[in-house]
Each structure stands twice: as structure tokens, then as C-alpha cells.
């Protein structure tokens, strides 16, 4: 029982990341009809927004401490962050400590801009091209983006911790009256899950309750009719692309403390997120979210030692196995519109 509870919890945070990326992918596919293989790179760029802000806040001036020596035996160069000099050591240290949550605000304009540049600068030229062309160009773009990040940040993972207040874990077991230290879950992963829920809710509310969202939904259902009404649907779809980029970026920002960001992290999530979209149903926003959490939890279960002992290698193929079954039995996915991906 406790093992099952733990794996469900485990699946939630991974599922949150899948759901957020898949949500963006589905938004882009649903509005623009583009299969965007560069979406994982947006997740990675988001994580590096957190790294960048952390480095900006840690920018330091150097003073020479004659009493101490560096590794070459020269007087030690002591670095003091400017924020600590400006706001005092305690406030300055607190600002640096909170760099990841602060990066949420920092990343929104950056991700929106990256999204706009990506769509206006490249992807709009591929709207009328076959999906294979779109996949090739966006995949190429993803490689270019990750090489740029590697050039500036290196190939090694960069630790980007959460604020100290979120260090440690919550003892669920003890809360439920079980033995302590059996079901524990890190605070930051709980924050990540709640954050994902808020973002997903906000995107749905935006599409459901605003005029802009209503027009976009109308455009997704029947693009030409909306165009005939004199509405510039392309402009709105461009905004939706930027919004999808922001959602992926925010998912990356908050994921940075869970696994140290590296230039390759986008690719690690991209393929799985595509499977999530297919399982959820191409173009279905609720489907993407549902499938994200379902597959996240399923992947966690498949990684349990007992399951792997019974079916060796199942942890590496479970998601693809589910995708095959879904594509064979229900090609439109769990919540896809009838006709999509079906002959």
C-alpha cells in the first residue's frame, strides 16, 4: 500500500512536467497545425532562465584578502555579490536564495519573446508544408538551441537549488498514521505539482472565460469561418504560440531544482511529451493533461524493483507500449476529437 502511494506521488511531479509540455505542444498543434519538435528546447531554455537569473543575482565584485591564499598561493580573491553589498548580507543572500521563484517573472517576457521569434522567424514559413518538413525543421531548431545553450553554459549539469525554506521532505506516512520515514516526499516536488495545477488551470480559464480565448477556440474548430468574420486569427494564433512557449518555459524554471539543468534536458522530455500528446489525443488540451499525469504515474510504477524483476526492461518501454496500444485501439487518443488521426 505504502509503495503504491509513493509511486503515485512520484508520478505526480513527472506527470506535471509532461502535462505542462504536452499542453503547450497541443496548443500549438491545435491552433497552428504545426508539430513542434523544438518544444522540449523551450522547456530547457526555461530552466536556463532560472540558471541565468541565479548567476545575475550572484554577480560579484572582487576584493583581495591578503590573509588568505588561493590554490596557486596568490592572495585570495574574495567575491561579494552586489545584491549583498546593496541590500545587506541577509537580504542579499535571501534574494539569491529565492532566485528560482523570482525566475518565474524573469522568464515570462523572455519565453514570450523566444516564442514570437521562433514562430515569426521560422515556423510560419512551414504552415503549409507537410508535417515531415515541420518535424525536420523544428528538430533542427531544437539542436541549434541546445548547442547555443551548451556554448554559453557548458555541458555539465548546473545545480540550481530551491529556496532553503523548501529543503527537506514532508512525511506523508507519519501524517497518515504509518511509520515515519516510509512515505516521504520533497517539499519542492509538492510545490511543483501545485504550480503545474495552477498554470494548467490558468490556461484553461484563459481559453474558456476570455473573449480572446473564445476566438482562439473558434479558430481551432473552424479557422476559415472565423477568418471570414473579419478576425485576424493568425495574429491570435501567434500569441498562442508565445503562450505555449511561456508554459513550457515555466515548467522548466520550476523543474531546475529537481534535476540540475543541462543542455540536453529538453530532448529527454520531448519524445515522452509527444507520446503524451498522442495518448491524450492530438489537439485535446484536457487529454494532454490527463495523459501527462497517467503516463507519469505509470512510468513510476514500471520502475519499481518488483515490477522490473518480473518484466525486465519494462521501465524503459512502458510509455511506448501504452502508445502502441492506444494507437491500435483508439487512434484519436483518450480524449481526441473523432476523426483526428483516424482514417
Amino acid at each position, binding site marked *: 500500500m*505504502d*509503495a503504491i502511494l*509513493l*509511486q503515485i506521488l*512520484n508520478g505526480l*511531479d*513527472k506527470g506535471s512536467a509532461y502535462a505542462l509540455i504536452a499542453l503547450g505542444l497541443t496548443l500549438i498543434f491545435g491552433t497552428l497545425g504545426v508539430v513542434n519538435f523544438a518544444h522540449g528546447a523551450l522547456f530547457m531554455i526555461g530552466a536556463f532562465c532560472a540558471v541565468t537569473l541565479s548567476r545575475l543575482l550572484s554577480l560579484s565584485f572582487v576584493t583581495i584578502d591578503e590573509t*588568505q591564499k*588561493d*590554490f*596557486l598561493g596568490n592572495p585570495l580573491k574574495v567575491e561579494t555579490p552586489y545584491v549583498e553589498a546593496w541590500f545587506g548580507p541577509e537580504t542579499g543572500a535571501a534574494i539569491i536564495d529565492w532566485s528560482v521563484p523570482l525566475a518565474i517573472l524573469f522568464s515570462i517576457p523572455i519565453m514570450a519573446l523566444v516564442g514570437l521569434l521562433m514562430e515569426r522567424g521560422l515556423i510560419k514559413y512551414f504552415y503549409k508544408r507537410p508535417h515531415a518538413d515541420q518535424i525536420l525543421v523544428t528538430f533542427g531548431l531544437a539542436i541549434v538551441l541546445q548547442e547555443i545553450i*551548451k556554448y554559453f553554459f*557548458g*555541458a*555539465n*549539469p*548546473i*545545480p540550481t*537549488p530551491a529556496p532553503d525554506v523548501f529543503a*527537506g*521532505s514532508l512525511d506523508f506516512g507519519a501524517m497518515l498514521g504509518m511509520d515515519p*520515514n*516510509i*512515505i*516521504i*516526499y*520533497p517539499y*519542492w*516536488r509538492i510545490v511543483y505539482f501545485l504550480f503545474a495545477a495552477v498554470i494548467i488551470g490558468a490556461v484553461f480559464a484563459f481559453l474558456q472565460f476570455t473573449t480572446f480565448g473564445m476566438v482562439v477556440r473558434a479558430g481551432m474548430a473552424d479557422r476559415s469561418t472565423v477568418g471570414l468574420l473579419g478576425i485576424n486569427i493568425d495574429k491570435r494564433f501567434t500569441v498562442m504560440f508565445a503562450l505555449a512557449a511561456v508554459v513550457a518555459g515555466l515548467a522548466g524554471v520550476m523543474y531546475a531544482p*529537481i*534535476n*540540475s539543468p*543541462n543542455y*540536453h*534536458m529538453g530532448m*529527454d522530455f520531448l519524445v515522452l511529451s509527444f507520446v503524451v500528446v498522442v495518448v491524450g489525443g492530438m489537439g485535446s488540451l484536457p487529454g494532454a493533461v490527463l495523459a501527462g499525469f497517467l503516463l507519469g504515474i505509470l*512510468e*513510476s510504477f514500471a*520502475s*519499481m*524493483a518488483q515490477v*522490473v524483476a518480473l518484466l525486465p526492461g519494462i*521501465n*524503459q518501454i512502458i510509455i511506448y507500449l501504452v502508445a502502441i496500444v492506444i494507437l491500435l485501439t483508439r487512434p484519436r487518443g483518450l480524449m481526441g476529437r473523432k476523426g483526428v488521426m483516424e482514417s
Partner: protein
Amino acid sequence: MSLIRKPLNRRSILRAGALGGSALAMPTIFTSRAWSAGYLNEPTGATVTLGFNVPQTGPYADEGADELRAYQLAVEHLNGEGDGGMLNTFSSKALKGNGILGKKVEYVTGDTQTKSDAARASAKSMIEKDGAIMITGGSSSGVAVAVQALCQEAGVIFMAGLTHSNDTTGKDKKANGFRHFFNSYMSGAALAPVLKNAYGDDRKAYHLTADYNWGYTTEQAVRESTESLGWETVETVKTPLAATDFSAYITPVLQSDADVLVLNHYGGNMVNSLTNAVQFGLRDKQVNGKNFEIIVPLYSRLMAKGAGENVKGIFGSTNWHWSLQDEGSKAFVQSFGQKYGFPPSQAAHTTYVQALLYADACERAGTFNPCGVVEALEGFEFDGLGNGKTLYRAEDHQCFKDVLVVKGKENPSSAFDLLEIVEVTPAAQVTYPPDHPQFAGGALGTCNPGA
């Protein structure tokens, strides 16, 4: 009388075609200009070319960049430029700072990408197109084994870079290949007594192991070493090499009876699994009345940097560390630090030393002929290169030297000051017989000069 002794027919044309085809299909490596000389790529001009095959792209690119820095420094020192680094402390005085055997050292580089096929392709290109007489470098055992086999076939010397799997000088050893870096067995043998002192002899260990060759040999080495102390291994779980989130593997540890977690992971795997383990509060946990502990058998400063504060207090082993105070290490750190502004990593150290050892062997042998170099390196004892007295054992071409047991530093004074040396384990304690079961299989064979 006809000039054509046998009439042309379908069969003879087919036979000629097959012969011609196979001649064309034969790798140029076997038909290159080297055939005409005594050995492959014999340098005939005023220069000699070495091939530095390091990961310049891919997940270990930072480690590869550090290896390349070290090689460039070694080339400078061999050519008599700079401060001479460890040439000044090396016990052998054959190198004079005038290149190797009077020829100026030049180099070409290849990108292994930490992929065996890419590494073989770049090594092959350096041998065939650039005339490299020796290939060195790399940051993975898979790559080392693959390139070592290629160099054996081709007939050039391979001086391995960072490779820790037992197999490199175990079942996959080759006469043309030499490893200065330590191995999994040595890590286990060095760590076990320190772990016993720190955590006692009544412990239950849970292993998470990267699902590839290096992971297996490291798990076996640490398991056998700790079990010989009285530790019990409660579970060993393989984790996919591509895994990034280890939470699903960490949480079952909480529910096991284990009080020690051994992470047989390297690189990004190590950074992520250690970070996840600390996030899940394993280090705050009490099991069987003892503090829960985590062990990382193979440490690297570059990886420790990626894991940040999570490495604090965690034991592991390493081949070399810049804080060592012997004359060789000090000379190397000074030289490298002056040139690049930061201390060298263990990858930089082992590759620098390998370049010097190769050059020295050529000088002592009086030839670049791989068979002469092999003879000079086999059984060679030296000192002054940062690890104390060292032996290149003839039977398996493995270096035997002191091994460092390190611990993540609690209060680092700089971005490089992440590990502290807990113990320098003497070479005798990590030495094993050539026929040790962990190194069983394979044969060194005979040297191949490629001609």
C-alpha cells in the same frame, strides 16, 4: 601468339572483379604509406603527430575540454615551452624538452562524442589521414575499449584517458593499450576500510547501478569489497543510462531495510541520482538505529560541481586531486593554474601524465615503433607524476599506484574546493593478481606495429 594467355571469359572477369573489389574495399589503414616503413605512421620529417581523441561534444564535453587543455600543456612542455610542469619532477630524465626523439610534437584532435562508433571513426581518421603515431584520451570505458581495439588492429599505441571499468585492462586488454587511470576494483579496495572505520561493519547496502559495463564492474567491486567487511547487500537495481529522474528508484530504498545507498553512477546520472536521494531526505533518515549514508564510488570534481551542496560528507574515490602536496602535483597545478586560471581535474591529470609517459617511453626505447614503446612501458616504475611510486604492470598494462579516498567538503572555500582527501590508500592495498576473477578473460596478445 596472343598476348592474352588465357582467353577472357565470364569467370575470369568475375574473379578479377572480385579481387579488385576486395582490394578497393580493404580499409586504407592496411594499405597506407606506413606499409613501406618499419611501422605504421613512422615520422620521417622534423615533427611527430599525436592524436588527442576527447569528447568535444556530448554530455562529457567539459571533461573533454579539460583533457584537451592538459594535452596542450603537455605538448608545450615536451617542446620545451612554458615552465616544464611535471617534466621537472618526473623520475625519468629521458625527456629533454626538445620534443620526442628530437622531433617537435604536433597534435590533431578528434571528437569521441562519448560514442564508441564516433570515437573509432575519429581515431581512424587521425591515424589514416593525419598520420597520428599514438591515440590518447576519452572519458568513458565504452569508448576506451572500442578505441583500444582499433589501435591494436591498426598498429598504433593507445594511451587511455578517463576509463574506470575493470574490463579496459581486464577482459578487453590489448598489447598496444595502456591505462594510467585507476579502476573499479581499486575503488572498492580503497573505499572498504574507510567505510568500515566511518560506518562500522554491520551495514545493509542498496546499490543503484547504471545499466552498462562500467556500472556492472563497479557494483561488483564495491559489493565484494564491502561484503568482505561483513556488510550485507540487500538489493541491486539497474537504472537506465538515459534516466534523468531517479525518484522512482530512490523511493523503494526508503522501504527497504538498507541503511547505505551506493550510487554506481557517473556523470549526469550521478548528479541526478545523488540530488534526488538528498531531496528525498535519505541523509536525514535513521535506519536500524544508524544514520543513513550514501556512497559514490567514483568521484570527479566536475561532477561534484554539478551536484552542488549534495556532495557534502559523501565518500568516494578518485584517481588524483589538485590539493595533493607532492612535488609533481604542485608543479602540475601551478603550471595548469597559471595557464588556465583554475586547478586541473583528475581527467586533465591522467591525460597529461599519459602524454608524458608515452613520450618518455619513446625516448627510452629510442624509437616510435609501437613494439619498442610497449617494451619500454611494460614493468616501468616511475615517480614524480602526482601519485607517488607507480608501476605500469607488464601483464595487463594497468598502472598500480596510490588511490585517493575523498569526501564532499562541508565548508568549501572556493568553487574548486569541493572534495577533501580522507585517505591516500597505498598501492599495495589496491593491487590484485593479474588473474583476479574480476579481470578474467581476454588476452593481452602481442604488440602490433602496423607493418
